[in-house]
């Protein structure tokens, strides 16, 4: 998809001369997630994937908010900023917008990015700042010990909702596509190969990439994604989104519905040419949005992969361009000239 990398992507981030391995990206800090947490798998996947990018390690920054997943930066041997609840996209925006030579990653959870930080998330997405946002979705509050989250299913019984939660959950993919994010993908903690393939595309994407990672919290919401991991049913449930390929699972297929929408049907019942071919680069987000709605009701069939990846200028490169244009038009700023501009008069 190089034809879409029309912006800076990673082009301004210095490359490393040395060959890097996973160990170069492990910090000296002891990892302190609960044993069995899905975060371990994601950390290992990231640490073993980033060397492939061949970037200078010192030019990578991981910024996080608050929550279990937000401890992530401490474990990466790069620059890192563990900030405050929900604000990582805002902090990362200031960093990425002023430093085009950095590869900036935001690590966040469903509570961090969709409750307290919902506003920053949607605005980062609409601006298209050069950020990679990894949203660890475990559908529960972990660090505060088990309250329902904005992605928990309705009726969730938790400490704060003994009679069941009332609020309808966000679908992070629908939300991101609604904000017209230029790169939206979903992957799962247990499928390292898929996770890394998505991260690779996300890293190289110009602008904000949002990657929802289904992540198991084995303490407060264990088994939330078991259907997708169960060898008996996962191949039937998982609809693989691959650009240019028919959208199918082992037994199901997606096709255009008579009402103009899309629908999931028995794969055996449709001709191959009726099956919808995935176009991640489609400028209009409505089809990607329709795909994001296919997992309603949850886990009957779940699209996994890159929903949308479109070329759009990034906020930071446009901001830099305005600075350059201002200098080109009127020359670099001169403080004396600035202070003396306008009406002045001399005394003495």
């Amino acid at each position: 998809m190089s034809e879409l990398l029309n912006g800076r992507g990673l082009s301004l981030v210095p490359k490393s001369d040395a060959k890097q391995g996973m160990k170069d990206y492990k910090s000296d800090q002891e990892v302190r997630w609960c044993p069995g947490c899905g975060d371990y798998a994601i950390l290992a996947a990231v640490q073993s994937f980033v060397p492939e990018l061949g970037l200078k390690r010192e030019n990578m920054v991981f910024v996080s908010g608050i929550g279990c997943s937000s401890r992530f930066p401490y474990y990466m041997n790069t620059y890192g900023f563990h900030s405050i609840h929900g604000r990582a996209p805002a902090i990362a925006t200031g960093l990425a917008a002023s430093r085009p030579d950095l590869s900036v990653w935001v690590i966040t959870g469903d509570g961090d990015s969709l409750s307290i930080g919902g506003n920053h998330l949607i605005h980062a997405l609409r601006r298209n700042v050069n950020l990679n946002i990894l949203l660890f979705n475990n559908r529960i509050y972990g660090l505060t010990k088990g309250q329902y989250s904005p992605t928990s299913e309705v009726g969730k019984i938790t400490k704060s909702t003994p009679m069941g939660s009332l609020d309808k959950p966000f679908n992070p993919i629908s939300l991101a596509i609604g904000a017209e994010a230029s790169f939206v993908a979903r992957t799962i903690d247990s499928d390292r190969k898929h996770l890394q393939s998505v991260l690779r595309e996300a890293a190289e994407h110009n602008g904000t990439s949002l990657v929802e990672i289904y992540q198991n919290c084995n303490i407060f919401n264990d088994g939330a994604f078991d259907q997708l991991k169960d060898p008996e049913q996962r191949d039937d449930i998982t609809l693989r989104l691959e650009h240019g390929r028919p959208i199918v699972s082992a037994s199901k297929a997606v096709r255009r519905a008579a009402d103009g929408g899309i629908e999931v049907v028995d794969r055996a019942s449709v001709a191959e040419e009726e099956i919808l071919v995935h176009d991640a680069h489609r400028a209009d987000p409505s089809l990607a949005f329709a795909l994001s709605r296919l997992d309603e009701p949850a886990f009957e069939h779940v699209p996994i992969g890159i929903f949308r990846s479109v070329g759009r200028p990034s906020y930071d490169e446009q901001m830099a361009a305005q600075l350059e244009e201002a200098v080109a038009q009127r020359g670099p700023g001169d403080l004396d000239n600035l202070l003396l501009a306008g009406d002045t008069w001399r005394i003495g």
Partner: protein
Amino acid sequence: MTKQVQQLDRVIIRFAGDSGDGMQLTGDRFTAGTAEFGNDLSTLPNFPAEIRAPAGTLPGVSSFQLHFADHDILTPGDAPNVLVAMNPAALKANLGDLPRGADIIANTDEFTKRNLQKVGYDANPLEDDSLAEWRVHPVPLTSLTVKALEGFDLSKKDAERSKNMFALGLLSWLYHRPTEATISFLETKFAKKPDIAKANIAAFTAGWNYGETTESFSVSYEVKPAPLPAGVYRNISGNQALAYGLIAASVQAKLPLFLGSYPITPASDILHELSKHKRFGIRTFQAEDEIAGVGAALGASFGGALGVTTTSGPGVALKAETVGLAVTTELPLIVVDVQRAGPSTGMPTKTEQTDLLMAMYGRNGESPLPVVAPMSPSDCFDAAIEAARLAVKYRTPVMLLSDGYLANGSEPWKVPSAAELPDISTAFATAPDEGETFLPFKRDPETLARPWAIPGTAGLEHRIGGIEKADGTGNISYDPDNHDRMVRLRQAKIDGIAKDIPALEIDDPDGDARVLVLGWGSTYGPIAAAVRRIRKAGGKVAQAHLRHLNPLPANTGEVLKSYDKVLLPEINLGQLALLLRARFLVDIISYNRVRGLPFKAEELAGVIQDVIDSE
């Protein structure tokens, strides 16, 4: 007819009209002419928060007060000598401030039955003798303007719009103001609509000529230029000076400026101004909210920029958590609070000094930071540079407390040259500081500041965050003794700045005053003007003014204790007094008014005299 010319040493004019009448523009142009002429001056715009309140109503009245003199002055003046009232609402809203004998120039065309009723006048005050104690000059400003523009291809409504320029022309004649700058201003402002430019210039000229020929004005006035120190001057408002100060700070710190901001009255003009100066490498980011504004600024600081956020009190409340993060991660950050009347939304366009305690303590945990307050509109320039100096040198957020009065008020400013400004640059860390190891929280023994190691620097990769950090390594630490040490170290770093700021200066010409008047921030002008009055009348009083509210100058306690009485006027209910009483056990006498307006010199002179007399 030859008219008499009378010499005056100072004049206070207030232009008042509907918020759609262009009173702020009229005031600005009269100010420009006055500045060009060489008077000292001080201005006070006063306008409603509503963009267009219902026409002709009291809430819709907008005014602009200008004080100019043949000597140096300190305030926009207590009470106007002249009120220009464009409608009955403007008269009614401002008459209470007008001393007996003052001039009222009233636009008779707007004194219609309907307009009079709107503001509760049963009879036309211009026609009964309710204004007998003032000198009323009835002028049909609107119809004279329309008449003057008869030759132009304009609707009556458009022609009427130029009545403020007619009024400006008349006042310019009355006070011998130069006209060229206003004419060229109008040509530039309406460059794309030359007909409108010509009409406004015609209205302005007609106003001048009307003064020359009418019998309503038999006298015109001259106020000679003021003998100010030699130099090049310009007129500047507090917000503009603050924006320029931030640009200068960026240049002098050799750091790119990053402003993260969300529009809020009365701070938005700083965002507007900075967004015009991209060729200085300034990035202005209009964020989705106050929190994102400061967050982005802090993120930019982490990356090696001079991160700034500008706001007013409600915004500071929202930014508190991020400012706390800046305190604990020890990154430079400038938080500009242009204070306005609170609590909550309060009165957005009115001034107050009520955010001092929030600036000092409005965060969770022990989170000390320096607080700096400018004392005049032009001083916002120097205060911004000082805030940046402290932020960069000590790796700390700094609160800069301006207010609505400074922000919108203006005064002549002797323009400094860039070469006179301090070098406030600092060095980023480039190498490990402990053998082969890099300790992100190893402190400079002198300043206690930690190294500023920015991403992109090989070998210094490190993680920072809001969780308590182990001294030195910066690793997460829940160790009780470490936390106690870090809390004290952060406090000691800020306290130590007292060694790096000037001592509190006392102004006491004879050295034998027993009463000290202390102030901070924008009250400097009215306090100093009041002190002058006392001294002129033979009284003795000392004055001192605090620019650094945290830490305080090292000699503050000594100064306070060397007077029998310390009077502290504040536009709050005694916030600095509370701090000083607690810290120095001095029985401060507070004087507090929170009317959304600056103090008046006469008012403060009375208060000072009472304190002197009570000895």
